[in-house]
C-alpha cells in the first residue's frame, strides 16, 4: 500500500521510494527513505496535504507525492 492510503494515527515503514524527481530527492534529504518509520498524524481540513511524523519531527506533503511512496504498516 502507499503512504496516502495509511489511516490517520497509524505507523508504517517506508519500503520503496521513487528514484527521480526533485520533490522526491528533497523528501529523502528531509529523512524520508526506504526503512524510515513514519506516522500519519493527520490530513489538512480539506483532506490534502498530509502531515506525517518521522525522525521526531512533523512534515507535510501532498497526496500526489504520497501516492508514490510504498509502505508497510506496522502493527
Amino acid at each position, binding site marked *: 500500500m502507499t503512504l496516502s492510503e495509511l489511516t490517520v494515527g497509524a505507523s508504517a515503514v517506508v519500503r520503496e521510494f521513487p528514484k527521480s524527481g526533485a520533490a522526491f530527492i*528533497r523528501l529523502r*534529504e528531509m529523512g524520508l527513505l526506504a526503512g524510515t518509520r513514519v506516522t500519519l*498524524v493527520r490530513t489538512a481540513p480539506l483532506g490534502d*496535504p498530509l*502531515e506525517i511524523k518521522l525522525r521526531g519531527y*512533523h512534515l*507535510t506533503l501532498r497526496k500526489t507525492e504520497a501516492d508514490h511512496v510504498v509502505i508497510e504498516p506496522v502493527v
Partner: protein
Amino acid sequence: MALPPHIAAATPGPATRQPTYALVGNPNCGKSTLFNALTGLKQKVGNYPGVTVEKKVGTAYSQHGQPITVIDLPGAYSLAARSPDEAVTRDVLLGRRADTPQPDRILCIVDATNLERNLYLVHQILDLGRPVILVLNMMDVAAQAGLEIQAERLEQELGIPVIPCQAVNGQGVIELKVAMSRTDLPLPRHAWDVPAAIAPAVAEIQASLVAHDRKLPLSARAEALLLLTDQDSVRVAGSTPLSPRTAEILKSWQQRWESDGTDWAGMLVNSRYDSIGRIAAQVVTQAGAGGPTLSDKIDAYATHPLWGWLMLGSVMGLLFLSIFTLAEYPMNLIDDLVANLADWVKGSMGEGDLRDLITDGAIAGVGGVVIFLPQILILFFFIGLLESTGYMARAAFIMDRLMSRVGLNGKSFIPLLGSYACAIPGIMATRTIEDHKDRIVTILVAPLMSCSARLPVYLLMIAALVPGDRVPVGTKVGIMLLMYTLGTVGAFGFAWLFKRTLLKGAPPAMIMELPPYRLPGVRDVLFQMLERGWLFLRRAGTVILGISIVLWFLSAYPKAPDGATNQQQLAQSFAGRAGHALEPAIAPLGFDWQIGIGLISSFAAREVFVSTMGVVFNAEAEGDDTAPLRKALLEAKWPDGRALFTPLVCFTLMIFYVFAMQCISTIAVVRRETNSWRWPLFQLGYMTGTAWILSFIVYQGGRALGF
C-alpha cells in the same frame, strides 16, 4: 598541528584578517535568535546582488574583544538547493559568489530535538574541509521531550567543538564565543563511505573541478558530491557556472547511471543518513516514549476541520482589526507631522517654485507614502509573529488545498492575505515561497487584493453613488464587499491563468516542516520588522521621491496667470492637459478629463484621488469631512450638461480602481523583488488593461440597460 596547505592558504592568521564565520542551519532551528545574541545590534542588512535574498552580516566580539565577522546565511535543509535562499547558502559556502568572500570557518546550528534531520546539512558541510563549530540549540526543549544528548560523545565522533546552547535565553553563548575565539580550531574528522558505484564519478568530477574550475582539492570533493545530489540545480545570479568540461563529465556519468538504473542521488542521500544514523545511535538516548507534546495538543485544534478554520479566521480577523485600529494613531501623527513640516517650510522660505517643490512635491509626496508605514510595520510585525510562533506553517497547511486549485501552494496565502492591507509587505513576504514561478505569480496578482489605499476612493464613490442617508447601510456595505470580492476573485483567476500559460510549471509540492509551536522571540520579531520597514523605505523612497516631484511638476506647470485658483491652475497644467489627452481613451468608460487627472495623480498613492478631486472640483475637504466634495461631485457636469458622476460612472470608477495598477511604490517594490522591469511593466499592463476592459463592459452594458 600544521594546517594542510589548502586551508592555510584560505585562512590567513588572525593578525592579518579578522576571522569570518558563516552561520548555517535548517529553518526553524533558532538561527536568527543566535545571530542576534552573538552580534547584538551590530548588523548590516542588505541584499545579495542580483537575487532577493537578505544578506546579513554582523560583528561579534571574542572573549578578548577581538572583532569576529559573522555572516548569517539563509536557512537551508540541504546544500542541494531548491530555493534561491538555499542556493545563496550553497554558493557562499562553496566560494562561488564574487560578492561574498568564502567564509573560513563555519558555525552550524542544529535543533537538538530533531538531531537526525538537522545533521544532514551538517554532514554536507563537514565535507567542505573547513573548521566547523556545532551548536546544539534548544537543549532544554530536548530534555523536556526526554532526549538525552551527549555533547562530548558527538564532539568525539565528529572531531569538532560541540556547544550545547539555548539561544533564546543566551545560555551557552559565552562558551560559544570562547570556541569562536580559538585560533586552533580543528578540522572535522569526518569519514563516510561514498557508495562504491558512485566513488569513481566523485573522483573524476573532483579532479576536473580542480583542473578546470580552479577549485581547491578538498572543497572540490564536496562540490562533486553536491553536483551529484543536485539534480535540478537552482542557479541564482552571482554564482559562477560550471566549466564545460566538468559539466560534460557530470552528464556522461548521469547518462550511464540512467541507462543501468543506478539511483545515484538517492544512494548518496541514503549513505549520508546511514552515517548519521550510526552517530545518532551513539549520542542520543530517548528516555521514555513521551506522550503528546503541547504542540500536538494545540494542533489538534489548530488544524481541526472545524476549529482550525475558526482559529484561522480569528487570527486573520485580529490581524486586520489591529492593522486598522492600531495604525490609526501613528497615521494621524504622521499626517500632522507632515503638515507641520510643510507649514514650517512655507513659513521659513520665501514664496516661489522651490518652496512649492519642497512642500507640495517632496514633502506631500513622500508623506503620502510614509503614512502607510504604520500599517506596513504592523503587518510585518504580525507576519514575523506568525512565523516565529510556527502558526504560519499551519495556515499554509490548512490553505494549501484551496491554493492548489489555482496552481499555487499554501505558502502564497499569507502574502496574498497581507495584500489586503498593503501589497508592499505582501510582495516582500513572498520570499518564503521557494518555487520561482509560484513566487512571480503571487507577486503579479497580489496588488489585485483591495488594499487600504483604495478604501478612501471606494468610500467617496459609494457616498456619491448612494447619496443621502435614505439608503440602508446594508447597500453600502454590500457594494464595498462586492469590490473586495471582485479583487479577490480577480487575483485567483489571474493566478490560475498565469500558472497555465505564462508561468507554466510542474505543480508545486508542499514539502514543509511543521515546527513545534514556540513562544515568539519578541525582540527578534521587532528587530525584523524594523529591518523590513527600513528596507522598504530605502527601496521605494527614492523612486517615490522622484515620482512625487514629477507629479508635482506636471500639476504646477505651466503656470496659470497670477490670481488663478488652484482649480484653474490644475486645469491648464500638464496634468490637466494629460487629462484632456487621456479623455478619448477613458470617455468610453464614462470618465472625463477631470477624472483623468485623478487617475494620473493616483500613481503617487491611490487615495490621492480623493484630494485631487478636491482640487479639480474646487471643494477641498476640511479635515475628514468629504461632504462638500460629495456635493461638488454630484453637481459636476459634462460640457453638454449631462451629469458626470452618475451612479453608473461611480460604480464603473470603483471597478476601475479594483483592477488598475496605480501605485508607484508597488511598481518600485516589484522591480526590486523580481530584479527586472519586465514583471512590473507586465503587471502595469495586464492590470490596467483588465481594468479598462471591465470598466468598459460595465459602463456600456449599464448604459444599454438604461442605467
